[in-house]
C-alpha cells in the first residue's frame, strides 16, 4: 500500500530556532496515527507544513498516488486536494450560525461564482443535519457559533472537518475542553473514520492515545524520536527521558 502523505527530510527554522529538524513521516490512505511529544516538540508546526501554512526550508512533502508536491500548492489548493485540519484552539466563525459554519465547510465547488449561485440542496441540507446530529448540535443549528461553549465549538469544528470530506484529517488536540464521556466518543469517532480515511491525531492525554489503539509517533525537538505501538514507544528509554520522565 503506497503512502497517502509522505514527508521526508523536512526542516524549518524560525529566526534561527529549528522547530522542525530533518523530519520524516508517512501515512497510508486508511490509517490512524497518533503524534505525541512534549510542548514545543513541533507537532503543530508539522501540521502547518502539511497544510501549507508554513513553508519548510528544505525537504519534500508529497501527496497521493501521483506524488504531487504539496509545497507548490497554496493553502486552499492543499485543502481542496483533500487535507482537512482541526486546529488546536477551536477556530469557527463565531459571528455566523452553526448551520452557516457547516454549510461553509460542506464539500462543494469553492470559486466565487460557484458560491454566488450556491443553493443548499435537499441532499446538502440532509448532510448538514446529519453532521449536526452526529456532534449533538441539532438544537443549536440556528445559534451563532460564538455563543457555544468551548466543548461545543470543538465539536462544531470536528463536524466542519467531516463536512469537507477530506482524505487526510489532521486533528490537533481534539479532546481539550471535553468531558470524559465526550473524549470516549471522540476516540470512537476517530477510530471509525480511520477505516476509510487517513487520520493524524495530536494529543497529550495518554489515556486518549491508548484508546486510539494505533501506531504512535513521538516527536521531540522537531524530529521523530520513536515510532511504533504505544507500549513499544513508552518502553523506549529515550522517550521516557524526554517526555514521560518530565510529566
Amino acid at each position, binding site marked *: 500500500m503506497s503512502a497517502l502523505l509522505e514527508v521526508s527530510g523536512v526542516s524549518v527554522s524560525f529566526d534561527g530556532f529549528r522547530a522542525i529538524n530533518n523530519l520524516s513521516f508517512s501515512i497510508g490512505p486508511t490509517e490512524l496515527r497518533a503524534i505525541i511529544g512534549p510542548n514545543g516538540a513541533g507537532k503543530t508546526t508539522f501540521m502547518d507544513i502539511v497544510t501549507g501554512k508554513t513553508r519548510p526550508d528544505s525537504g519534500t512533502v508529497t501527496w497521493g498516488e501521483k506524488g504531487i508536491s504539496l509545497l507548490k500548492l497554496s493553502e486552499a489548493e492543499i485543502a481542496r486536494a483533500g487535507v482537512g485540519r482541526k486546529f488546536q484552539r477551536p477556530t469557527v466563525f463565531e459571528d*455566523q450560525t452553526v448551520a452557516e459554519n457547516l454549510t461553509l465547510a460542506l464539500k462543494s465547488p469553492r*470559486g*466565487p461564482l460557484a458560491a454566488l449561485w450556491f443553493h443548499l440542496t435537499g441532499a446538502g441540507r440532509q448532510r448538514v443535519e446529519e453532521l449536526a446530529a452526529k456532534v449533538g448540535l441539532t*438544537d443549536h443549528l*440556528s445559534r451563532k457559533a460564538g455563543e457555544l461553549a468551548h466543548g461545543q465549538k470543538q465539536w462544531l469544528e470536528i463536524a466542519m472537518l467531516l463536512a469537507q470530506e477530506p482524505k487526510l484529517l489532521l486533528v490537533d488536540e481534539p479532546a481539550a475542553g471535553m468531558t470524559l464521556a465526550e473524549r470516549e*466518543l471522540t476516540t470512537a469517532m476517530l477510530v471509525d473514520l480511520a477505516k476509510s480515511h487517513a487520520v493524524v491525531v495530536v494529543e497529550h492525554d495518554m489515556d486518549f492515545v491508548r484508546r486510539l489503539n494505533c501506531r504512535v509517533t513521538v516527536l521531540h525537538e522537531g524530529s521523530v524520536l520513536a515510532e511504533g505501538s504505544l507500549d513499544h514507544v513508552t518502553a523506549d528509554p529515550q522517550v521516557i527521558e524526554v517526555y514521560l520522565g518530565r510529566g
Partner: protein
Amino acid sequence: MTLPLTETPTPATQAPAPLSSFQKYPGGPGAEPPAGSGAEPRGSAALAPRSFLAKNPSVFWFLLALAVLTAVVTILSPALGMGAMSTSFVKTLGKTLCLCIAALAMDVVWGYTGILSLGHMAFFGLGGYMIGQWLMYARTEEIVVAALASDPIPPTAIEIAQGVTTQIFGVVGSSDLPLVWSFAHSLPLQLMLVVLVPGVLAGIFGWLAFRSRVTGVYLSILTQAMTLALSLYLFQNDSGLRGNNGLSGLQNLPGLAETSQDDLSIWFFWASALGLALAYLLCAWATSGKFGSVLRAIRDDEARVRFLGYPVEGFKLFVFTATAVLCGLAGALYYPQAGIINPAELAPIASIYLAVWVAIGGRGKLYGAVIGAALVSLLSTWFTGGRAPQVPLGFYTIDWVDWWQVLLGLAFVCVTLFAPKGIGGIFDRIAPPDRKGAPLGPDDGALMEKEARE
C-alpha cells in the same frame, strides 16, 4: 469518496459509551440549550429554504421607503408643476441616491469582506469621466454642426471633428483629439468603458495587491496611493481629459436641447432611484447566501477560510472589482446631474468620506450604508452651502462652512468609540435582528454588549 456518516458507526471496542447515546451530550456541561428552547423551532428550521425577502427583511422596507421618496419628490418637483422643490434640490437628491449606491459598494467591500478600500471614489469618478466624454463630445458636435450649417457648402466629417476638437481642447491649448477620446462619439462604446475602465483598473490593482497578500492598513494606504496617483495624473493637461478644467456642461443631454432641466432633473432622479433599488437588490442577494457567508468569514478569519479550500484572494479580487464597477456605474449616473467633473473629485479625501459615511451609517448592514451616505452627504450640502445659520458665541461666530468638517470628524470619532454599529444599530434596538427563532441564551444582554464592542 464519502464518509460513512449515514450508518450508525460501530462503537470501537474500547469505547464504553455507544455512539447512539451521544446526543445526550450536546456539548458538555454548562452548555444546555436555553430554557424554553423546546418551544422554539428545531434546529433544522435554520436550514429550511427561505424566500429572498424572508432572508432579507430590510429589502422590502428599503424599497418601500425609496418608492415613497420617489413619489413625493415627483409630486413636489418643478417638472410636474407643483414647484415646491427647486430643480437644483431635485438634482441634489438624485446625486445623493448615486452616492448611496457607492456606499452600498463600499459596505460590501469593507463592511462584509473587511477590505478597507480608500479608493472606491476613484472608480466612481472614472465612471463619471467615461460618460462625461460622450456627453461633452456629442453636445459639442451638435453645436458645431449647427454653427457650420449656415455655411454655403455642407461641412465634411473631418471639419466637424476638427471643430469639436478645437471647442473641447482649446482650453488646454491642444488641437488634436487625444487617443482616450477615440470612442467618445459613441454612447454604447463609452457606456462599455464606464464598466471596463474602473473594472480593469480595479482588477489589475487588486490582482497585484491581493496576490502579495497585502491586507489591513497597508492595503488602505495602497488604495489611497492609487487614487492620489490617478487624480494627479488627471490634473495634467496631457492626460487628455482637459487637466484641472475637467469635463463640463454634462447636464446638457445631446439630442435633448429643447428639454428643460426641470424635466431632465426628475428623469435622472428616477434613474438614480431605480439604480439604487437594483443595486440594493443585487447587494442583498450577493451577501445573503453562501457568497456572503464566505465574505464575512474572510473578514473575520481569512486564514481559516483558506484551510476550508476557498481561494480567498480570488474572492477578494472578485468583490473589489465588482464593487469598483458598481461605483463606476453610480458615477456615470451622478455626473450628468452634477454637470461637471474635474480631477478634484478623485482626490483621496473623497474615498475617505465614503468610508466615513458607511462607518457612521453602520457597516455590515446595507441599509446602514445607505442611511449614512444619504444623511451625511445631505447635511454636508446644507452646512457647506452656507445655508446653515451661523452660531454667534459673542467672542466667536461659528461659521458652518468652516466648522462642518470638524463636526463631521467629531461625529466619526464618536461613532467609532461609542456606537460601532452606527446609525443602523439603532434599528436593531427598535426591531432586534432576526435570530431565526433562536433565543440569545440566558445572557442576552451580555451578548449585545459584546457585539456592540466589536
